[in-house]
């Protein structure tokens, strides 16, 4: 993606992420987060959850990936902010959408929402720099 092709209000292609136990456990372990609620269903149930829940590093990973899928390998991500909501659990789907909220001097800001059956799992903002000119 080139900065010259970006406009405020532009929407990113939506992405549906089917949430499997493999994805949630795999994301936790790939981020070296062995906190039991992210891989042990019994531990999650002892805390009143019905199943394992996605860890925050995986949420960050998906928000980052969603934006760079659109922006391409020449984007440079500068900053990520997320607000966490409804937990992501196996069997659900996280529906990701994004909108460009600012674009100036090569810098772009994208608002991202990841929504599951409960409501918004994540509301985030990603700031990135895109290449300018041909």
């Amino acid at each position, binding site marked *: 993606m080139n900065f010259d092709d970006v406009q405020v209000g532009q929407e990113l292609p939506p992405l549906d992420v089917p949430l499997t136990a493999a994805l949630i456990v*795999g994301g936790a372990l790939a981020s070296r987060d062995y906190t039991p609620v992210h891989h042990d269903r019994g531990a999650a149930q002892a805390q009143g959850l019905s*199943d394992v829940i996605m860890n925050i590093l*995986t949420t960050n*990973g998906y928000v980052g*990936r969603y934006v760079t*899928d659109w922006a391409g390998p020449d984007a440079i991500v500068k900053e990520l902010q*997320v607000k966490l909501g409804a937990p992501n659990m196996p069997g659900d789907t996280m529906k990701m959408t994004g909108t460009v909220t600012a674009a100036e001097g090569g810098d772009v800001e994208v608002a991202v929402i990841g929504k599951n059956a*409960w409501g918004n799992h994540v509301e985030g903002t990603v700031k990135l720099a895109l290449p300018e000119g041909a």
Partner: protein
Amino acid sequence: MPLSPEKKQQLEATLREFVGKPIGPPYQGRDAVNEPMIRQWCDAMGDTNPAYLDPAAAKESVHGGIVAPPTMLQAWTMHGFEMAKGYDEPTNEEQRLHKILSEHGYTGVVGTNTAQGYTRYLRPGDSVSAEIVIESISEEKATALGIGYFIVTRTSFRDQDGEEVGWMTFRVLKYIPAQQPQAAADAPAGQPAVPGRIRAPKGHDNAWWWDRVDEGTFPIQKCNACGTLHHPPRPMCSACRSQDLGWVEASGRGTLHSFTVIRHPQFPGYDFPIVAALVDLEEGTRIVSNVVECPPEDVHIGMALEGFIHEDEDGFKLPLFRPAA
């Protein structure tokens, strides 16, 4: 159980001692930035960005070679397998702070916000350390989960030369759970327990009203002494102070007195946007409900409405309104 004012003052004085201090010495990540961990991360995130995976394409990119996904920053300094055992005895000041709060009844903990800044992308061979400072602890706040304190930590990530490569702020709420967690274990395996609408509390003065709704009728409280209608139900007539109260069935016909459209925040269990409405019933009292089966932009004050008893998937019934046919 809320603390006595003296105990709370003591607790808050203790909490203030943590603010502005590192939780311990910088923690050195075990492994340098490396491609196997990057690939494992990309597998789990479904990330196919060639800047992380394909040496030839990465060389052609703005990065000039393989880089780690920026959001992987924190992963390089996670403690890994030992986290599964938990920490009975605090091993740093952050854990000690959490333990003190837990001992005072603030047993719940939930991450609410995080932000990360990436000063530069990490490359294979970089070694990363993390220094965490407790940046702030809020006043006691009332939240949907219970009363508690918001704790913000700030982490500086540094490379082998001591240069900052990124930072992170992390906000958690440490709270006294307002209610016991619901047993969600009865949800079918592999399916999240999707919560329904929040139930109205049924008390001495209003349980009968919800019981009538459960039977499929739409009741309005009526004073047997003077005939005044009331909603919501109450223990005594506001007009004549009689406690001899009965009810009549509403026709459901009404007009929209006022409304607001709720788009945020979005709670689970509701379909947004919600048209929250004040409806004047033709019998002569007013009820708060929702207007459904009508796009919010078509809702207008004065419109004719038709009430009906709606049933949620979980069996909860309540009167809602739609545009009159």
